[in-house]
Each structure stands twice: as structure tokens, then as C-alpha cells.
């Protein structure tokens, strides 16, 4: 076995070979699926818990507060304590709610985010599945979440929830366009939709640098649109605490609420991962043209660390947004998308196509 922090391919092949040597082919595949599933589930839960903690700390720093500091060192286990509390909490039975849809909704939301995480490359050779249409798959899967939100709002039999769900529907359907189109800009530059190849294409410079101004514009648009798509502030109209109490999840309690909560943070992680992978080079280290020594030092940092660092940088930007800006109104939100972001995006794609055709990119 040849385990390396820099390339997981041989490690994966070793596991594959080990299972195939000891099990029939069908059971080997089944075992692999279970291993991957459990690994992703663990990762999902850990990242979710950590993000909730991180958000609390970041928000506390922005607001002159200390943040959680009682449970464990620096309050690190606060979210775990909270999660235990949420699991033990009573699930309130809503009398006039549509029980089937009401119970189904949180699962749809969480499954959508769970599926999206499968396609993301965490390091070289460390991804569950490497589609040749990876980006398309992620966009398609992450937009399933809105179905869960709409169901939650509709089945709760609560007017606040319904307003929140309708807002969310309008918002996600609109901003999906901008997310997709800003990624198309980069697809034109990269010439592929496969995540591993996109990352590989950034070996000599991240797309945000090599793609001239259009790539930068696409990054900004993606950041705005994906913040809106994940229902986070300043676009958190679906929850809009001061208007709709808690929006679509007003009636949920206990673990079902925790699912929505976790899914929100994981969606944030997923869009940040995509931003990091597509614009900031994924797990590729930071290289500067001819500085051989500098590049070598950068290469020593494992790819996984690069990936996590970039992702959390994007997440931090999104948290910064949330805790600084007031909330938009629904008509302004749609105006921003349809009158500003969409035209900018379309022009941006044209410019990018032109640049790629002329070979002006680096």
C-alpha cells in the first residue's frame, strides 16, 4: 500500500483491490458504496457541526461578543451539545398539517445537499464520483432542495411558512440561472464540465486569475447568486426572522428543524466548495509563474488543506455578508437578479467566449 497525503488515487486502488480480492465482485461494490456513504455522512455531520460553531464565532467577533465559550475549550463542543438537545427535543405534532409532506420535506432538503457533496473533489483522487458532467450534476441536484422548502411551507398549514416558501421558490428559481450561467463562463474557459479536469486545468494558475476580467466578474456573480440560492443573509427572505418569524420552518421542531438547519450550512459549504474548485483552483496549490522555490514550498502543503482553506475563505466571505448587510425586499431581490445579474452574466459569457476564441487568456 502506498499512502500519500498528496495523491489518494493509489490508496483508493488499494482498497478496491483488497475488497475485490476478498469478496465477490457484487459485494465488493456494495462494501465500497457503504464505506463511501459512511465516510461522506461522517464528513457531512462534522463539517455541519463545525460550520455552526464557526458561524457563531464569526458572528460574535463581528458583534463585539465572545461567542460560545463554556462547553469545551473555546466552546468547541457547544454545537454538539446543541445537536444532542435538538435530537432529544419533542417533535411537535401539527394537527392540521399534511403529515406525509410535512415529514418528507426535511429529508428532501437534506438529501439534495447530501447528493451534491458526492461530486466534489476534496483532494487528488479523493472524490466519491467523478462525472464528466460534474458541474451540471451539482447544479441539478442542489436545485432539488427548493422542492423540500416549498413542501415544508405548504404542508405546515401556516401562513408565515407559506409566504416564506413562496419567496424561497421565486428566489431559488431565479438565482439558479445566475449560478448556472456564471459557471458556464468558466466551463467555456476550462473546456470541460468534469471537476477533476477543471482542477487539473488550473495547475498553472487559478481560473480567477487566468480568465481575465470575465472570470472575476463571474466569481462575484457566483458569490452573490449562490448566497441567494442558499437562503442566507442578506437574501434570507425565506426565513426573514423579523418579518416571518422563521419562514418555512416555523412549525418544525427538534431533529426535523435540525435537518433544515444542517442543510442550510451544508449548502453553504457546497457552494463555497464549488466556488473554490471552479474559480480558486480547488485543491491545487498557489503557484506564481517562475518562482520555483515559492512553488515548491506551496506544494508541500497537502491538497486537502488547500481545498479546505479556500472553501472556508469563501464561507467566511459569505458570513461577512450575512452579518453586515440588512435584508433585501422580495421585489428588489428579483430586480437584482433579472435586471442586473442576468444581463451582466450573458454579456460576460460572450466576452469570455470571445477571449477564449482569440486565445487571449493565460
Amino acid at each position: 500500500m502506498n499512502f500519500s497525503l498528496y495523491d489518494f488515487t493509489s490508496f483508493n486502488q488499494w482498497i478496491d483491490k483488497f475488497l475485490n480480492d476478498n469478496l465477490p465482485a457484487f459485494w465488493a461494490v456494495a462494501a465500497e458504496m457503504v464505506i463511501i456513504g459512511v465516510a461522506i455522512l461522517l464528513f457531512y455531520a462534522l463539517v455541519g457541526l463545525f460550520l455552526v460553531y464557526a458561524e457563531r464565532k464569526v458572528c460574535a467577533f463581528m458583534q463585539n461578543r465572545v461567542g460560545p465559550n463554556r462547553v469545551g475549550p473555546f466552546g468547541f463542543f457547544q454545537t454538539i451539545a446543541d445537536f444532542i438537545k435538538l435530537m432529544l427535543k419533542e417533535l411537535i405534532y401539527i394537527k392540521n398539517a399534511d403529515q406525509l409532506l410535512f415529514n418528507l420535506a426535511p429529508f428532501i432538503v437534506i438529501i439534495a445537499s447530501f447528493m451534491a457533496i458526492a461530486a466534489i473533489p476534496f483532494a487528488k483522487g479523493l472524490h466519491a464520483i467523478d462525472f464528466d458532467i460534474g458541474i451540471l450534476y451539482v447544479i441539478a441536484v442542489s436545485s432539488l432542495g427548493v422542492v423540500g422548502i416549498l413542501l415544508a411551507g405548504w404542508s405546515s398549514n401556516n401562513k408565515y411558512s407559506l409566504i416564506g416558501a413562496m419567496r424561497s421558490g421565486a428566489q431559488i428559481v431565479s438565482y439558479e440561472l445566475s449560478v448556472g450561467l456564471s459557471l458556464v463562463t468558466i466551463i467555456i474557459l476550462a473546456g470541460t464540465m468534469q471537476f477533476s479536469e477543471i482542477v487539473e486545468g488550473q495547475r498553472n494558475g487559478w481560473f480567477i486569475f487566468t480568465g481575465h476580467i470575465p472570470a472575476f466578474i463571474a466569481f462575484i456573480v457566483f458569490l452573490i447568486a449562490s448566497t441567494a440560492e442558499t437562503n442566507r443573509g442578506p437574501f434570507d427572505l425565506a426565513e426573514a426572522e423579523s418579518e416571518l418569524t422563521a419562514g418555512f420552518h416555523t412549525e418544525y421542531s427538534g431533529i426535523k428543524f435540525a435537518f433544515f438547519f444542517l442543510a442550510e450550512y451544508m449548502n453553504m459549504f457546497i457552494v463555497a466548495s464549488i466556488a473554490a474548485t471552479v474559480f480558486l483552483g480547488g485543491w491545487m496549490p498557489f503557484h506564481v509563474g517562475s518562482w520555483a522555490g515559492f512553488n515548491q514550498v506551496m506544494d508541500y502543503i497537502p491538497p486537502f488543506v488547500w481545498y479546505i482553506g479556500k472553501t472556508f475563505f469563501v464561507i467566511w466571505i459569505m458570513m461577512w455578508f450575512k452579518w453586515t448587510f440588512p435584508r433585501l425586499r422580495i421585489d428588489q431581490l428579483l430586480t437584482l437578479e433579472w435586471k442586473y445579474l442576468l444581463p451582466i452574466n450573458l454579456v460576460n459569457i460572450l466576452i469570455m467566449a470571445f477571449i477564449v476564441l482569440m486565445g487571449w487568456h493565460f
Partner: protein
Amino acid sequence: MKEVINLPVKNVEEEEYHINMGPQHPSTHGVLRLVVSLQGEIVKSLKPHCGYIHRGIEKMCEKDTYPQIIHLTDRMDYLSAHINNHAVCLLVENALEVEVPERVKYIRTIIDELNRIASHQLWWCSFGMDMGGLTCYFYGLRDREKILDIFEESFGSRLLHSYYTPGGLMMDIHPDFQKNVKAFIKYFRKKIKDYDELLTGNVIMQLRSKGVGYLSKEDAISYGVTGPSGRASGFSCDVRKHHPYGVYDKVDFNEILGTKGDTFERYMMRMNEMHESMRIIEQLIDNIPAGDYTAKMKAVLKLPAGEYYQRVEASRGELGVYCISDGNKTPYRMKFRSPNFSNLSALDHISRGVKIADLVAIGGSLDYVIPDIDR
């Protein structure tokens, strides 16, 4: 056991639906209940239902002596408690024709203005929160704490002070009072810039508040909208200017007047009033004359039979106290004209045709305190 109660629905167009905002709702600032008729997201009309925190303060006043009444007025608009106290004290003093020492007048004016700043700070917090900017809340509270510390140092309480008594003050100010107030003003002049950077100058905030929730001057007058909300519509209603009390006739300050009458204008009124209040305090703080902190008063105060009215400028508008005395030690009838009640009455008029989000912002800009509405 599934029984659906069919409530009769009257005079409602088919496509309208109602939601109850409150009594438990994050942005009604207390236990106000607004029955909002909506068409999609658009507010068609709304009906405020008050009374959830009605404590019968006016009736209780009839059983209490005048010094006791002061403690009840704290509980009306608890964010401008000093100013409420001031109204009752002035009423009693004017009725008894007591000459209050100059020192008392100066201290009362300074503390009223400090209270106004503290109240506007809390308004800024909650307005930011209504807009969805949660960080504002902590910035505002952080600075309000400094004022409360000054209050606590001088007379021990932070929210419900009851510091003024008929004829003077409960006790003298703390020796460090002047120093601390000056330090606070120096501090807050810097910090108020943060407020502007965080919220006032924000594009989203300006987009959401400019041109939204328009109240004309005529409507402001006919609804009796006073205070910063009324002045935003150009209704010159500052009691401090028109009927000066305390030492407001001796200080140089501007009545902040607006023209546009929208949410943003109401916002700017309060921001500018904080600057004006600091100016007033700066003019007075070094000139507090020496002397007694209270005039000589009788042990039992009995107002001569008759009707009395006293108005002061509370931080949310004109607070009027109307009192009928039959010569006893308790009033025969006490009536408070609370600014929030009148301001709330304009809410339906202002917010017809706006979105739910704007309704919340308008509510924030009117800055109602529910215990003052219900009393």
C-alpha cells in the same frame, strides 16, 4: 376529534387573507397585535389591536399620591423613563407654583437628553434588526450601556429610574457625573460614525427605506404624529422649542425638521437628534450651577382643585399629562397623551400598499413602545 371551527368572514375580498402579526412576533417590539390583510405580499390594510399589556396606569394614578405617580410613569415608555417623570414633576410644580432650583433644571435637562440618546440608540438597534441587520443590535446596545452606567452611578437604577421628584431630584448627582458624561460624548461622537457606516450608508437599507411609507404633513398633523416621526413629515412639533421647559430656552439647538416623510427621513431625524442632544449636553454640562438638588416641598402634596396640562418632548413625541384635581392628595383623573398611541394610529394609513418587509421597516421607523400605547 377533528372539528374545524368556521369563523364568519366578513367584508373580505376573496383573494385577501389575514395574518396575525403578534402578540408574539419578533418585530412588533412587544405585545402588539397587528391583523394584517394581505394580497400576496402586499399589505391591503391592517388593524392594530392594543391592550395586551394594559395595566390600568391611569386608573392606578387615581389611587396614588403625586410622588407615587412618578413611579408609574416610568413603566409607560420605559425607554424614556426620565422624560415621563419630568412631565409629572413639571405638572405638580406648576400647579403648586414651586420655584425649582436652577441646578435641578440643568441636571434634568442633561439627563433628559442622555435618556433621549439612549432611547434612540435602542431604536437604532431594533430598526437595524427589523431591516435584517443583526449586527446593529449589538453596536447600539454596547453604546447604550455607557449611558446606563452613568445613570447607575448617579442614582442606582438603569431602566426605571424615578429620579425626579416633585420639586427636584431624589438625590444629587455623582461627583464623577460631569466627567463621565463628557467622556461618553467624546466616545459616542466617534461611534456614531460606525452607525452611519454600518446602516445609514448601506445601499440595501437606503433602497428599502427611501420613498417607502410616505406620511404627508397634513396627515401627520391630523393623526397627531409627533416627535421625530412627525418632524420627518415637516410638522414642526418640538415641545422643547415651542413650549420650553427645563433650560431648553437657554441652550442653542436646532429642531430637526425633514421634508420627505418616508422611512429614511424618519430614520435620519433620530440620527440627527442624537447629534443635537449631544450638542445640548455639551453646552450645559460645564455650567451646572451649585445649589440645592431639591426645592422645599410639603410632606403631602395637594394640588389646588382644577385642571392641569403639561407637555414634554419624550423621545418618541409629545407626551402630555392631563390632570383634574379636586384638592385631594390624589388626582381625580389622570390622562396621559402618549406619543406612541397617536403614532401607531397612522400605521394603517402609511403602510397600505407596501410589502410585508416594508411594514416591518415602517414599524421600526415609527419606533413604538407597546407599554406606552397600552399604559
